[in-house]
């Protein structure tokens, strides 16, 4: 999810090897929300209907009328001369099984001319960004940059794809975000290039595919060592090569020195954004401001070897450099028969190098910990297991997510399908070792895969409290489970589609982490669950109400996109849109799809 909550970034795995590589795409979910709303209003029949928000068009004039065999270029040609987005509703239809669900063809919302080709089988994707904190003072069309870091299993590599977009306040779903994706840091667009209007794709012409430069696909250390120090004639080799199949990645950033803090906007010299001129890392001691050291590291787990590798991502999220592989650990997890299989990886606490990182395994319920040293060095730590909660059979911990405080972790176990809530508070006595005690186990739908954590405000005991919710995708059952970890209860099961895998929310990110802009965090000025005054408490100044950055599918003054979950369905080739607004009659229901589900298959 883009921090502005209006664009999704997705990778296509090309698992069936239909193509010559995989791709990274940007999906305009604001445009999709507009299309769904307009479809609900006016349908997709022939005849000119519409209003000022959806446009007055006839679907008979749309490319959809050409039938399913028409090419993209042909449909564009038919719609040339009109506002293309107004025809989006013509590509939508109601689901046969559940007419309340609107499915729209995905090509309308995927920014086709911004697709980037990467290596085979991308794994996880992480987004690194830090937008300016004062949206009010930011010039219109100011350049906003995001780094998309992708574990590409087939290369193997960590691939950096850059996203750059101009600030467009009050954008409606009918307008383009003018977002550019590229995979070549050496030919990075300047701020002026980003600010310049992006010419619309000429109707009917072929789309170009961006390729990645070699420097953006990192698979080795930059320095060499002798192959055989006793025989230099054998030449050199990289000090480390990236182990096979990078699976899960995690980006961490903060200050190296304990007690130092990083504030949003402190990379900028603009006084509007950094009024006191603080350095990226600082500590106030009386009247003095001490300068610390900012870091941003990436860690990757490796499925077949059980190793972890660490990358240095440079010194700034707004001027992101290609990752530098700095360390490769030995096998962190292994079974008694020698097999390994590292899967998920996450730090106990973001932005704090003193804290442990945790690695899960696909083959054993043992979790391994390590610490990340300066320069992104991996130092192994303790091992512990969670198998006692289940049978002695092999566990498969597919995902681990921590509370922002680091005091609690959530483990999604694939088999048996369960969510384990683990107390990861530090033990007494000032030690740095977490308790690592499972405090509750929640039954889940079959095949839990990925999970996200959200902090949602709710009324409880008559007061507003921040409540934690965990959303877990269940690959095998096609559902998303909603868990209240405070009580250890499954509070809802949502239908999503076949093979749900990744999930992204447009709300509910923790305030502290949001200020740092951790992957997937939505800006408080775009979060439907936060008011502008909430954002101000977090040090973020939102634009005025007239022309804000809240995603409003039908444009300024219209309703904001409510709390939604976007779930990628691996087997359906769709992205499901789930309604998570408690006030809505469709609360905890799927309301739309991006893409039409593939024909059902017998598995």
């Amino acid at each position, binding site marked *: 999810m883009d921090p502005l909550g209006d664009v999704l970034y997705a990778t296509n795995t090309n698992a069936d090897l239909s193509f010559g590589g995989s791709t990274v795409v940007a999906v305009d979910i604001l445009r999709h929300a507009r299309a769904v709303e307009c479809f609900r209003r006016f349908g997709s029949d022939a005849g000119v209907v519409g209003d000022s928000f959806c446009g007055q068009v006839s679907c008979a004039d749309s490319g959809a009328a050409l039938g399913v065999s028409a090419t993209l270029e042909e449909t564009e040609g038919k719609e040339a001369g009109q506002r293309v987005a107004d025809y989006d509703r013509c590509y939508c239809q109601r689901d046969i099984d559940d007419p309340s669900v609107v499915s729209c063809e995905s090509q309308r919302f995927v920014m086709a001319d911004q697709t980037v080709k990467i290596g085979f089988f991308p794994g996880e994707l992480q987004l690194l960004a830090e937008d300016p904190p004062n949206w009010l003072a930011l010039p219109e069309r100011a350049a906003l940059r995001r780094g998309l870091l992708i574990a590409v299993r087939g290369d193997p590599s960590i691939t950096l794809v850059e996203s750059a977009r101009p600030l467009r306040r009050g954008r409606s779903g009918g307008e383009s975000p003018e977002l550019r994706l590229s995979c070549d840091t050496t030919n990075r667009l300047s701020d002026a290039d980003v600010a310049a209007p992006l010419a619309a794709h000429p109707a009917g012409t072929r789309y170009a595919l961006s390729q990645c430069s070699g420097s953006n696909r990192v698979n080795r250390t930059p320095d060499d060592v002798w192959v055989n120090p006793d025989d230099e004639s054998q030449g050199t080799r990289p000090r480390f090569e990236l182990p096979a199949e990078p699976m899960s990645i995690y980006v961490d950033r903060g200050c190296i020195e304990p007690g130092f803090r990083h504030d949003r906007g402190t990379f900028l010299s603009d006084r509007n954004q950094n009024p006191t001129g603080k350095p990226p890392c600082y500590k106030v001691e009386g009247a003095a401001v001490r300068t610390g050291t900012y870091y941003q590291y990436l860690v990757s787990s490796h499925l077949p070897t059980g190793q972890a590798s660490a990358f240095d991502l440079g010194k700034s999220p707004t001027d992101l450099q290609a990752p530098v592989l700095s360390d490769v650990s030995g096998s962190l997890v292994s079974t008694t028969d020698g097999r390994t299989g590292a899967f998920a990886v996450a730090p106990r606490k973001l932005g704090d190098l003193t804290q442990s990182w945790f690695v899960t395994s696909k083959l054993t319920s043992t979790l391994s910990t390590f610490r990340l040293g300066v320069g992104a060095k991996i130092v192994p730590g303790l091992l512990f297991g969670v198998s*006692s909660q289940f049978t002695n059979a092999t566990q498969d911990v597919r995902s681990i997510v921590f509370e922002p405080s680091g005091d609690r972790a959530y483990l999604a176990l694939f088999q048996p399908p369960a969510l384990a809530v683990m107390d990861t508070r530090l033990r007494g006595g000032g030690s740095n070792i977490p308790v690592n005690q499972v405090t509750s186990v929640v039954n889940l739908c079959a095949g839990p895969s990925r999970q996200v954590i959200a902090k949602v*405000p709710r009324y409880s*005991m008559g007061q507003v*409290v921040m409540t934690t919710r965990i959303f877990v995708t269940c690959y095998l059952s096609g559902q998303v489970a909603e868990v209240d970890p*405070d009580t250890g209860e499954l509070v809802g099961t949502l239908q999503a589609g076949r093979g749900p895998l990744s999930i992204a929310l447009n709300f509910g990110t923790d305030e502290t982490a949001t200020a740092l802009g951790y992957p997937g965090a939505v800006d408080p000025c775009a979060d439907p669950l936060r008011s502008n005054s909430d954002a101000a408490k977090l040090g973020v100044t939102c634009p005025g109400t007239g022309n804000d950055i809240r995603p409003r599918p039908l444009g300024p003054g219209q309703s904001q996109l409510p*709390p939604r979950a976007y779930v990628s369905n691996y087997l359906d080739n769709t992205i499901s849109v789930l309604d998570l607004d408690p*006030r809505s009659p469709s609360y905890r229901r799927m309301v739309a799809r991006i893409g039409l589900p593939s024909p059902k298959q017998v598995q």
Partner: protein
Amino acid sequence: MRPLSCSLVSTRLAWGVVLGLLASASCNTQTITTPTRSLDRPSDLDLFCVEFETKEGGCIPSGDPTSDPQAYLDAYCGATEWRNYTPVATVLPRSACEEGKRRVRRDDYYQKVRQAATLLGRDPNTPCCAADDTACTAVAPTCMYRTELALVSNTVRGEISVADTSLQAPGLSTYGRLASLHGGKPGFGFLPAGSLPLHVRATVPVPPGEAPTTLDGQFAWAVTSNAGSCDLSVVRLQPVANLVARAPACDDSGQTCSTRDCDGESCPKSVQPWIPSGADKKYVAARPGWIEIAPWSRANQRRVVVAFPTCGVVAVVDATDGASAGRIWEAIAFDQKDARNAPKVLTASEIEQLKCPSDCGGDTSPLPPDAMDIPPSGAMKSASYPASVAIDTYGSRLLISDAVGSTVTVVDFDNTKADGAHLLTSVRRVALDFEVRNDGRSAQLGLDAIRVTPRTPAGQFAYVVAKDSSVRVIDLDREVECETNPDARYLLSQAGASLRVLPDDLIESNLRRLSCLPVDKTKTPRSPLATGPGIWLPNASLPRDVGLTHVDTIPCTSSNPNDCAFSANPDESSYVPASAALWVGDFAWILGGGGSVLGVQIADLCPSPSYRACFPEFAALRRLSLLHTRSQALSNPEQLGLPSHPQALTVGPQDRLGNSRRVLSRFDERSDTGPNGPRPDSDTSGLPIITTRLGGSLVSYYTTISEAASNQTRRRLLLPMMTPYYYLPVDPVCDVAIAEQALTLTSPDQNIPAEPTRRPVTTMHFTDPAATSSESWTLGWEAVLNGLGRSSGLLQSDGTLIDLNGLYCNRGVEPGDKLWLTGCYSNSDCPSGTLCKREQTQVSSPGLCMTRDQETQCRALSERLLTDSSNDTAWAASWLRRYLVTKAEQQITATPPLADVTDRLTIEELPEPEFLIERQSCTMADLGKACSDPLFTQPVKPRTGAPGVSCRVTGRDSIGKPSTSCIRQCEFNTDCGSGFVCAHSHFEADERSVLGQLPAARCVRAPLITKGTPWNDGSGWRAMTQDEATSVKIACFPDQLRYEVRGGDSMVVKTDRTPFATLVRRGSDGVCQRPQPADSTFLASRTLQPRIRIGPHNSVADGDIQRCPSVQQGLISHRIPASPEAAQASSCQSLFRNGGTVVLPYGQSEYPIHVVHGQDFYPQPPDLKTEKQGPRLGQPRGGWQWDPICVSNPMDPRCGSDVKRTAGDPWLNREFELFSMLPLTSTTNQCILTGQTEEEYPLNGSEQLSCSGFCRFPGDHTEIQGVRRIHYEHALGNMVLRVPRRLVNTDLPYDDRVKITDNTGKVIDNPGYNPIVWAVPPEGYAVVFSVVGGNQPFTQYAQTSQRDASSGLLAQGLRAAVSGLDGIVYLIDEGRSGSATGLRGQVMRLVGSILDPYFLLR
């Protein structure tokens, strides 16, 4: 009732269903395809009693059975018509299904049939079988039976299943039959409830003060709390029972009887809670949690106590049909903002003001919430979360747990009051010893389910599931939390007083006194191995619920009453011995992870040990027999019909504790090894088996030497070893000992002097046997501390080593430990681009990883640190890089330029000799003076002109002042022992004013690379600068390196299964230190010390803090004074009834056991002078216990109590060294038992040979004189380590008066005799022994026998436990199968202590 219209094939329902489990599974021969599963994530269960009676069809003949019993039975057994009729179902009060009442009803109903059978000589229970036909399998018509129907809530389906717990389902061979309540639809259907029904409760309301009657059943009802739809579902049970009733013929092969949907009467009705709001209703849409039926419910007034966690309320909801359905009459509200305030019983007007969240959608509250609602510090977590409720009907109390808090709220109620006034305002809270954080951003721990026990002889208790993975116990009489993990040493220290164990004649006293020790860190010390006061599961999994069970009697399955345990004249072979699995009394089951269920004893009325359960006199006999062991003098006692236990066992308070984990009793007998009690593994003579190893090879810890004068041989201890002790086992309950053990004296091998060879021998005293596992123990000399063999150390140039994940405090590093920089052995040990650099001369010591350039640089620089420039092979890569750890730190900021928060060791050089016990002490006044002790064994002959051994500064004390000791000086590396190099020390800066310009160099393991260390830069010796130290570091230790931290100067104790916890705290400055006496963890930390330190070189004087006190001075004696009330108990007195001659039930009368009073053998202070003589065979005895008359007749008046005479038994007097304990408040866990007199080696061996008393240890018979003994207390038990003097050369005659010729032909003193030097073990030395008979918690696994495709599966998600009648506990497994066809939940049950292998709902 209507007859079936379909054709029937006769198959008779087994009579055995009435008998429950006893019925044969082979009755049903039909092959019917049965669904593999029907339940779907069950969450809870409740039961109600129903009687099914088929009144039509002529099941019971109407004739007179006495006139023609055969004809009567023929008519009865041949009747089939009744099977076509649907039986009448009658819901009864729950107690009507108790086993006794069921039997009475059965016997009454089938009276005529039974009468006829009796007249014909048939078994009335099998009236259709001829008396002599034992193979008969005919089943009698069962037209009436009582059963319990179970209601099971299914969360996924939102339905309530109904199951008959007695019947078999056709096609299945397990008991328990789910009823299909679908009409005309495929598959099983159940009663539709709301979404996510979490809890279900059923009741038959009985008017208060009245006995239940059969008429009450018609008002029976049940309720579920539906978390998904935020409502309750209420259902009447009589219509449900009618719905379930089916004609028996429906199960016949080929029959298809239609099933029925529930209707308006039998379908659950939704009840939406509401609050009066003026004339309107304000519906509560908050998620309901736990429910209980209010005890004040009446037939026409259904009331449910419902927890609404998100609303912070526990409310009483009206579940009666009609307009008031759903009304909240009463409520207890928790403080909305501050959990520290007590909850409050709301008034009617306050109830009207309640605001609850809409958890199930439809929330009209603004989103995002008004920022003004959020506190200035940010949004808070819920202050309280009342998750569970429990009702104590005995005490009229309501107990409420807080899912995010640490308190249990107690609210009294009054059944007699009107609605709105039942809950009394005397709300109070029981605070549990439980840390919660409720700061809005932290993990939320809290409490979960509560279960209240019935009133037991031990009291009444509440079991509370806590989210720290423990179950807490509250004594409801005092409303205090119980410490379930008291320190075993504390219990032993009180075993003669308040925590005394009385004989089973006085079992009520034991139960009450030992049931609950209140949590109080100052009064009830906690076991060092426990992390809290609660009960935790053996696999450390999360407890989910607690099931309570009460068993009245020992079951008897024999039809012959004389075979039963309680018959008047039982056969001894039918005795049921007390054992862990025999449950009579009150017990609990804790449901855990991995399908495990842990047993808990609340009030064990038949505690182990006893030959015959629940009979005190047999318990006394059994305790006596447990004192009897195989021994050196009687290695095969079983041949005499006497017990041959490998080790004596005695009962302690720990064995009688209530409300603690039930342990697989250490008194339980195994056919091969006898009782299970933990003990060091022993041989057939009862002598401990211990091996000593050097690396991977066995090595002998003693040698046999010859005495030159007498030509006799004897054994001499070579290496440190545990000490074996004879001891006299005494039963502390009756204060009785076995006379033969107390009195018999023989020579173990007919050569050495007499010893008490009938006594057992042990090397370890397990003070906490309940926590001891069977495992291997290792005492390793300077072994690697757990987790501290690492490869990520970075040596710094300031005399430190840092490691990001060293975790030195958590891993227990202490000053005095050793750091070994192990480095590499081959290139494969090194990172890419570097090679392993070693010298050929290094043999087996490791080198360093470096590049060629670094090698050149490192060699040149590190050689400057040594005095010996002639040797190019001595440099950093070839040093034995070992250092002393002087400080360990964790989580400190590294020295710039590194900014990491890291863990750090501060190190210091190690001079020669390395070990403190080798170094003669000296003072600063002696600085520079030669030392007198011949410290070194190698080389025998020092170089002429070598500087020798001198008093030098070798460290700094705790306040930074220089400390001194005698170390070797040198000029060349060859002046030093193997593994040392010659270098100057930075300590010379402290010495210069005394020793002159450049003090002599010293032998060290390796020079310290830090600023200030002297080095020779070519122009002479000067202190290194920081930059120079850094350059050496960069050249020699450029990258991360392998290292080990080892316990310094000590034997490191390790166990291979029990994780050895250490308790070293991180101070606020990051320095690791053991907790100080003022610290709350101090007591727990004391015995969590894995190092047995072998002490200083010099003997420690009496009264020194390092010396052990005597029992009189402060040791806690292991002997427990006799309790007068116990001595007067009948069971104890019976042991002395026949003059102290006892015949055991399973013994042979010709070999009785003679007993004596334990107090007559009370240990006395040892007398160093006289104990060496000791008693001798054939010599006059010093005490009565050696009198032959007393041996044969201990009760002779002349042999009466005279404790002073026991001074003649040196072994008895020395028991305390192993068995007694240091005070609980001691600052240490070890002390030196021996002083200078005992540690002084005798002039020659003749004294050793002539010793006849306590001068040799049993088993190895090595010497006592000249050996240091160290008393060591581990969390699990005590050991005594012996450290001998060094014997250099065992080939040489053992006599210092003998001169020998050395290699040069010169006559020199015998170097094989060196009484000064202690025998420091070689590197890699380890003492290894096994502990066998270890204990384990009594655990069952929720898994039935494999009887078909969907049975025999281990529970994956035990969720709830429900107590049934007759000691049954039902287990609800919600299942976690990920496959669509997999088992998605099952219900099993425990009967007493056993999982019923045949009962299964799925």
